[in-house]
């Protein structure tokens, strides 16, 4: 059926031709809301507090290697503001030392996939990479048929200048729909998220983990239930790695020298 109605187009345009638009004000408002969305990480409500407790359980289940050996084994959400504490949520103070010297990468971009396979053994093959950045590799590869992405970027990779503490970077760069930003005993702040993409992209489910380290590295590891993050057939109900496993990879020492 021909559903082309030129007069409808003209009517809609005519009726909105002289709408008053204060572009500056609207853009300022959009930027402000965007920044606020990125910083919305504080556990200021009972719901958020409950979520923090849940994530503490998730992180604790990763094991003592991830949580560090000098703490009490319980990470806490630092800088949580006026959080509603619950009797079951242990409290501790995390003191973040001055930023240590940034470690150097132990892997080139071409070595990232093989390094990942030392954590989770399996066959890996790389996708063709658009860009080679050995100083800040972001690599898409296939592990046992499933798409995986690893990003190892210094904190000044996007802005060209240092961004801030691990918590500030998590609040700025973290995902609005992800878990709350959580500080580990060594000062690294972590976040995880699992989401399913739009139908137009094939409804692929991806799990991700991020680690913002005190020495200025931002590490991301993501896995999909398909060979790529979009436009690829779904291979399984869930990605091949849990958020906890991805967190283990994101906080692994294999990426850096002098760890």
């Amino acid at each position: 059926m021909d559903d082309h109605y030129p007069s409808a187009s003209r009517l809609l345009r005519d009726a909105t031709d002289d709408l008053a638009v204060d572009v500056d004000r609207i853009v300022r408002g959009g930027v402000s809301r965007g920044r606020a969305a990125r910083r919305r990480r504080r556990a200021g409500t009972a719901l958020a507090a409950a979520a923090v407790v849940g994530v503490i359980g998730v992180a604790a289940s990763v094991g003592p290697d991830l949580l560090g050996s000098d703490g009490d084994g319980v990470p806490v959400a630092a800088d949580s503001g006026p959080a509603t504490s619950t009797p079951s949520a242990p409290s501790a103070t995390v003191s973040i030392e001055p930023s240590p010297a940034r470690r150097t990468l132990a892997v080139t971009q071409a070595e990232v996939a093989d390094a990942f396979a030392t954590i989770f053994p399996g066959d890996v093959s790389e996708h063709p990479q658009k860009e080679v950045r050995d100083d800040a590799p972001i690599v898409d590869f296939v592990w046992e048929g499933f798409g995986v992405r690893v990003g190892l970027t210094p904190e000044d990779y996007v802005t060209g200048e240092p961004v801030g503490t691990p918590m500030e970077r998590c609040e700025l760069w973290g995902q609005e729909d992800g878990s709350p930003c959580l500080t580990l005993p060594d000062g690294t702040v972590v976040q995880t998220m699992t989401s399913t993409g739009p139908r137009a992209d094939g409804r692929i489910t991806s799990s991700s983990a991020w680690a913002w380290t005190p020495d200025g590295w931002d590490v991301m590891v993501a896995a999909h239930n398909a060979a790529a993050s979009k436009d690829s057939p779904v291979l399984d109900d869930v990605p091949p790695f849990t958020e906890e496993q991805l967190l283990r990879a994101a906080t692994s020492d294999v990426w850096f020298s002098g760890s």
Partner: protein
Amino acid sequence: MSTRTQDYEEFARARTPALLRSAWLLCGDTHLAEDLVQDTLAKVYVRWHAPFRSPIETPVAYAQTTLTRTFLSSRRRRSSTEQPYADLPDRPLADGSDATATRLALQDALAGLAPADRAVLVLRYLDDLSVEETADRMGVSPGAVRSRSPRAVARLRPLLDASLIVTSERGTTHG
């Protein structure tokens, strides 16, 4: 200010008038429209600045999709209190050159449409997208767009120039 932020602000300034036009037709209210555009720009800002991710391939389409789905999502949340009505109110139309009168009449007509029908109208007839592109922006099937499209235009018929209307019913005119 980083290059990425400068690029974002340049994009936002260039696209805001078009986004506001769409938003006004979707919301039927200037304040709600500005609110929707700011929400859209905020979401684009977050995606634009996301590390570890390649730049948005088609920012115009991304913003359009974000605006449409944010609107539809917000309307779904309020659907228990808002219902389209069956008949147009009996409002006299002013001269067609009078943009304000046209807007008022259009507001009335759009208010009688379901949110998804309004979205179809905006994407198909304001933004000139194909059925497939409209379906993609809305996250629905092309068939759903095809079925909504005539229904949505029918709501506007009293406002349209009858001589230009073409429908599947041969010879149909409206006045």
